[in-house]
């Protein structure tokens, strides 16, 4: 057997001891699932840079082992800023009832914790993933602790967004969280979900959330994610979404946190008239690294995907955008558009962009665009020449750069919330 990276070896060594206390340990089906996850993980290891999909994101800092945290234990949870009647909170990977409020959910919306589902042996809600080549997903399957299990009955429309918080604080055994979320919307159900990942300053940890989403005919999920992990954290997220006929998936990822993060979205469009809308903004400074990787698979005719990602990179921050659009043979009358733009505020900041169109049908409309550049000096001088201070002028231009992608957030409250977050980030530019 080949040598594993130090962190992977730790996981393999720990598995037997750990699995006895993980949720669902009494269920043979869950145990089998975990075991197969570990076996796949052990054969894959964390991807090195020779793996094509990971060419631009180097995990060495993670795989050599996470440093001991500097954060004080039992620091107060970062407060939730987004206000909504429905809140589900996970602290250090476990559902925290006292920080949650789920009693106002309407009939037809069932929200439970994954741990509870696994403890009753409900392994069926997790599909088979024998062919999955993603090491961190396999690792998640082996060690999954908890997460959101959301089921919306057909026709249900949820009045207000559900806020799901994943909060990391220092404390014993708190340096890795393998969250597993399973979301299913029945026919014509409509739900808005706001996912927030946060950690206390100075806390070093590895967050490895995996989310499986299934949208039945005509369902709509507005899925917003704010990644504000601590500056010492690693965040590797995978979200898989399947869309049936006429379903709409709107995703917006706002990322400001983590030392190293990757947000990977794979969308499988399985129905005509379905729409996949993936957008995002990442604001990075210092030596932060932020990777957005999307794979959009158009597997049947007559559907639509669009994507706009915008990044602002200051200091020595690095951005990565990899976007693949696949259109299989016979998936005619499909349109797929993708745009990636990065604004570099420093000459040491950088971005790597890899658009990939894999088109096997001839009656389709596809586009991709990528650009990166600095702030427009002409525009900056123009604003200053009217009496606007340089700092304010820069902010106006950065704001303008982000304006159109933020407009894509269809929920007004979330859009305002995200605008406030970006404004606060810009105050420190």
């Amino acid at each position: 057997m080949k040598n594993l990276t130090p962190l992977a070896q730790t996981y393999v060594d720990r598995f037997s001891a750990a699995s006895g206390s993980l949720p669902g340990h009494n269920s043979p089906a869950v145990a089998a699932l975990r075991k197969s996850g570990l076996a796949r993980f052990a054969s894959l290891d964390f991807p090195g840079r020779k793996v094509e999909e990971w060419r631009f994101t180097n995990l060495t800092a993670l795989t050599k082992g996470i440093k001991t945290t500097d954060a004080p234990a039992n620091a107060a949870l970062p407060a939730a800023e987004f206000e909504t009647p429905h809140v589900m909170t996970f602290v250090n990977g476990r559902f925290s009832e006292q920080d949650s409020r789920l009693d106002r959910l309407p009939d037809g919306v069932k929200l439970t914790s994954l741990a509870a589902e696994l403890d009753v042996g409900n392994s069926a809600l997790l599909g088979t993933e024998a062919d999955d080549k993603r090491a961190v997903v396999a690792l998640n399957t082996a060690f999954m602790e908890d997460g959101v299990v959301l089921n919306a009955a057909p026709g249900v429309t949820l009045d207000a967004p559900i806020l799901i918080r994943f909060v990391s604080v220092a404390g014993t055994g708190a340096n890795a969280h393998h969250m597993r979320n399973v979301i299913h919307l029945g026919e014509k159900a409509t739900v808005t979900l706001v996912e927030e990942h946060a950690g206390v300053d100075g806390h070093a940890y590895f967050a490895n959330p995996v989310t499986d989403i299934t949208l039945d005919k005509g369902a709509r999920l507005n899925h917003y994610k704010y990644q504000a992990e601590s500056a010492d954290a690693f965040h590797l997220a995978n979200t898989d979404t399947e869309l049936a006929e006429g379903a709409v998936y709107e995703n917006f990822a706002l990322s400001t946190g983590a030392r190293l993060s990757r947000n990977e979205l794979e969308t499988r469009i399985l129905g005509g008239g379905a729409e996949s809308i993936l957008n995002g903004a990442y604001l990075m400074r210092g030596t932060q690294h932020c990777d957005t990787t999307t794979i959009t698979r158009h597997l049947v005719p007559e559907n639509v995907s669009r994507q706009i990602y915008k990044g602002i990179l200051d200091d020595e921050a690095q951005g990565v955008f990899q976007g693949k659009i696949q259109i299989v043979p016979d998936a005619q009358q499909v349109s797929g558009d993708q745009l990636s733009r990065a604004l570099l505020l420093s000459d040491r900041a950088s971005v790597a962009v890899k658009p990939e169109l894999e088109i096997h049908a001839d009656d389709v409309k596809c586009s991709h665009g990528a650009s990166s550049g600095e702030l427009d000096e002409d525009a900056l001088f123009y604003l200053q020449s009217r009496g606007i201070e340089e700092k304010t002028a820069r902010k106006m231009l950065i704001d303008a750069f982000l304006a159109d992608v933020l407009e894509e957030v269809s929920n007004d409250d979330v859009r305002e919330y995200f605008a406030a977050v970006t404004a606060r980030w810009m105050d420190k530019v």
Partner: protein
Amino acid sequence: MLEIKNLHATVGGKEILKGINLTIKAGEIHAIMGPNGAGKSTLSYVLAGRDGYEVTSGEVLYKGEDLLALSPDERASKGIFLAFQYPVEIPGVASATFLKTAYNAQRKYRGEPEVDAMEFLKLIREKTKELDIKDDMLKRAVNVGFSGGEKKRNEVLQMSLLEPDLMLLDETDSGLDIDALKIAADGVNRLRSPERAGLIITHYQRLLDYIVPDFVHVLADGKIVKSGDKSLAHELEEKGYAALSAA
């Protein structure tokens, strides 16, 4: 108001201004004419404080103060306004936001109270009416999708709003048809007063029929080679710059 003394400036290491001397007193309008490449736009950018325009010797006093030590926004707030030859398009910034931010930034700098949105709207509507500018322009992004004429009129609108003490107009006539030229000139003339001064940079005499200058200077190869009254502009129009440079 403005004293330029032996001003030398380089752009990208190349000397463009080679010893400019010019004094503009309050109440005066001066015109600088000259062939392409004479350094006209460089002079306007040096006065407005653009990066990359390096003053190698000489000095510029504005109201007795060292102008070159001030940042572009400070110069603006102290009353200098440059109407750009090529106004810059700024996608994503609404014209109304831009104008209000600039207006209040200058007021704040001068220790005057900032105006609120309602007050500002009233003020800007007066100005757009004077300059025959449609209000919907205020909702559009700064200069984005504007025609050449609209951009120039937008410059004059900003100037009317900010009411500078020293107006610098860089080729404001280019791209304007005769009606738009008259409106723009009216905007400038409305601001003329014994307390204000202006420097009009132009290639053609046409604009000077509408904004009549007190003095006309000819700039060639980085120096003022001839100065006179408004009749000099007509002379240039008839004989051309070549004849004058030879003289």
